[in-house]
């Protein structure tokens, strides 16, 4: 029983990394009603970008690398917007889907070619901290990720509901034509959304790299899949939903692994997604707002 509890706890804590990726997916969907398939790859790309800080300043602290990752993530977010959305007809849902899939593969190959696919050691914060709660242990670095997810959620909600940019973003999300008639520059709001989610993605990538201890291009596709699952289960466009779904998916993953083994684990996660799609297609926090 203890093993099971510990395993679920490990999974829930690691699910915080899925939550961070899910937030990015859901934010872009919330604003543009488009899926950005390149989001997880750009996040990992941003994390790789953070490593340039170590190239420039050997021995730089982990927080500086994370900051570099946020910056690189923001730049990548802008590039993804320009390449996959700005010049692509937004009326065709397939066009942006395919352009972002293309971008995912491109970012993946750029990483592979610049590192020859070699895993890169990633600096971590609090990775040697292990908290004991009775007999259960909790990793310090995963607690940090969990805290970062909650902080990101709070910051994003504050941004959305307490600032003019947030007001504009919500307006564009709900009624883009009306928003444009009110003088809101839709393209600029979209750019801001991509840059903000890019910064968040860079942080997510860096925290994931830190939690694994190494970065590899192997991360991009699984994180994309997990991010999408989390987004659907949490409710497309719902930030708190992405966090709860991330933790839920992480916990269920380890639960399934405990009972059915690692080779069947992902099968059951997909089954969970299927169950949600059939019985609660809007996800845990189905969003009522929509774009016209």
């Amino acid at each position, binding site marked *: 029983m203890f093993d099971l509890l510990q*395993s679920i706890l*490990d999974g829930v804590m690691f699910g915080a990394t899925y939550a961070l990726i899910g937030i990015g997916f859901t934010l872009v969907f919330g604003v543009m009603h488009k899926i950005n398939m390149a989001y997880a790859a750009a996040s990992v790309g941003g994390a790789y970008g953070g490593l340039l800080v170590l190239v420039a300043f050997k021995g730089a602290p982990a927080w500086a690398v994370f900051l570099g990752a946020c910056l690189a993530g923001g730049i990548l977010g802008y590039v993804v917007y320009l390449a996959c959305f700005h010049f692509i007809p937004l009326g065709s849902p397939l066009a942006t889907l395919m352009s972002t899939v293309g971008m995912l593969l491109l970012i993946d190959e750029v990483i*592979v070619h610049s590192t020859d*696919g070699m895993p890169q050691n990633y600096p971590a914060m609090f990775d040697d901290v292990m908290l004991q709660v009775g007999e259960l*242990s909790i990793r310090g670095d995963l607690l940090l990720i969990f805290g970062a997810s909650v902080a990101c959620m709070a910051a994003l909600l504050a941004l959305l509901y307490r600032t003019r940019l947030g007001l504009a973003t919500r307006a564009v999300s709900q009624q883009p034509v009306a928003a444009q008639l009110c003088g809101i520059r839709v393209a600029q709001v979209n750019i801001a959304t991509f840059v903000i989610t890019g910064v968040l993605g860079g942080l997510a990538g860096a925290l994931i790299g830190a939690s694994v201890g190494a970065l590899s291009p192997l991360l991009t596709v699984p994180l994309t899949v997990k991010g999408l699952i989390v987004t659907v289960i949490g409710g497309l466009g719902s930030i708190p939903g992405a966090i709860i779904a991330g933790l839920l998916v*992480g916990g269920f993953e380890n639960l399934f692994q405990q009972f059915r083994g690692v080779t069947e684990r992902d099968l059951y996660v997909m089954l969970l997604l299927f169950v949600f799609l059939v019985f609660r297609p809007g996800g845990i926090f189905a969003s009522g707002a929509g774009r016209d």
Partner: protein
Amino acid sequence: MKTLATAVAAALAAMALGLPSGATAQERTVKIAGFGAKSGVVRSFGVNSEAAMLAAAEDINKAGGIKLGDGAKGKVVVEFLDDRCTAEEGISVIRRIASADWLVAVGPTCSNVAEPLFGILQKKVGDAGDSGLQMPVFTDVAIKGGLAKISEWAFRNVPSEATMYSSLFNHVRTEFPQVKTIYGGVEEDFAHSRASWYAVMKDRANANGLQVLGESKWLLNDTNFATQVREMKKANPDAIAIAAHPFTTCGVLKEMQRQGVKPKLLIGLTSSSSLETLEGCAKQAEGMIIPTSFAPVNAQATAAAKSTAKFKGNADLHSMAAWENMFILKGVMESENVLAKPDSVQADRRKIRDGLAKLKTTDGLLGTTRRTADREAEKPYVFVRAKNGEWTVYHNPL
């Protein structure tokens, strides 16, 4: 003056017509194709193999090239094709190579490519009823045991993991008497890792008196190893053997550090004795022992590593097999009187195949390699240990 003008005019005319000059008329090109993963997460294998092949070709050409059957000299030309470590791409690549004028192919990187690829080669030489490709393939990297027996056109110069781990566990029994139990960690969805643990390491550990307490499993793309390492911790083994590639090996080693799992002995997979592991987790891999068929332990091996570095490749057990293959092929082409003419391509391929099949031994960078009847190699090997961020030779069992 008139003579000079005539000579210059003749030379220009010859150049314009694309005719070879007198000196180069006798020099032909010997085309050797390399193929393997040059994209995707195992790109480094292809990059290293290509660098080793180019470096070896340069050395061969500098030394006068290959002496062909009619006395002419053959200059070695290498081109390396990307199979992305996928079976479909690998098969497409070998078909492309076979349909052009390449005399022999060196590759592939991945066992999951080698197995189906060998399946499309002609199974028995000279079988008129078998329309499989008649193309000699000399594998440098794909290491899963016993694949060459699929086709008589398939040859491998990869180390025998069964032999190396037999020797390693025998060494453990004699030199680490305090090690009585072992626990495995295996990348369950990767052919090489699975085969290495279930068919080789586990069996060899048992045979040498170690009690196998169990195994934890994970997947190639996994990022969370807490449960698996907890299983290891619970089993409390004296030794842990990790049959996984560098990314997950590093993930597991870092999780072991977090959970305070410190076995008396750490054993790794052959493919992990590379720069990748040290790039990812040198500190956590400290002390890990791995058997390998390459280490820069003599002048020849050091020179090969240096030449390969010039082409931006790392020398390891895989890339140096590609290096060795080039020199083995040179010897075979010379002894079998290969002609390297446009109209002798298929005959030359057959000669190379027959020549490779005749070999009983070959010269390797660590010493003499024995060739087996089923076209595999028994290569000399050493045990290396991760020490201060480098792989250092820990023991030479031969």
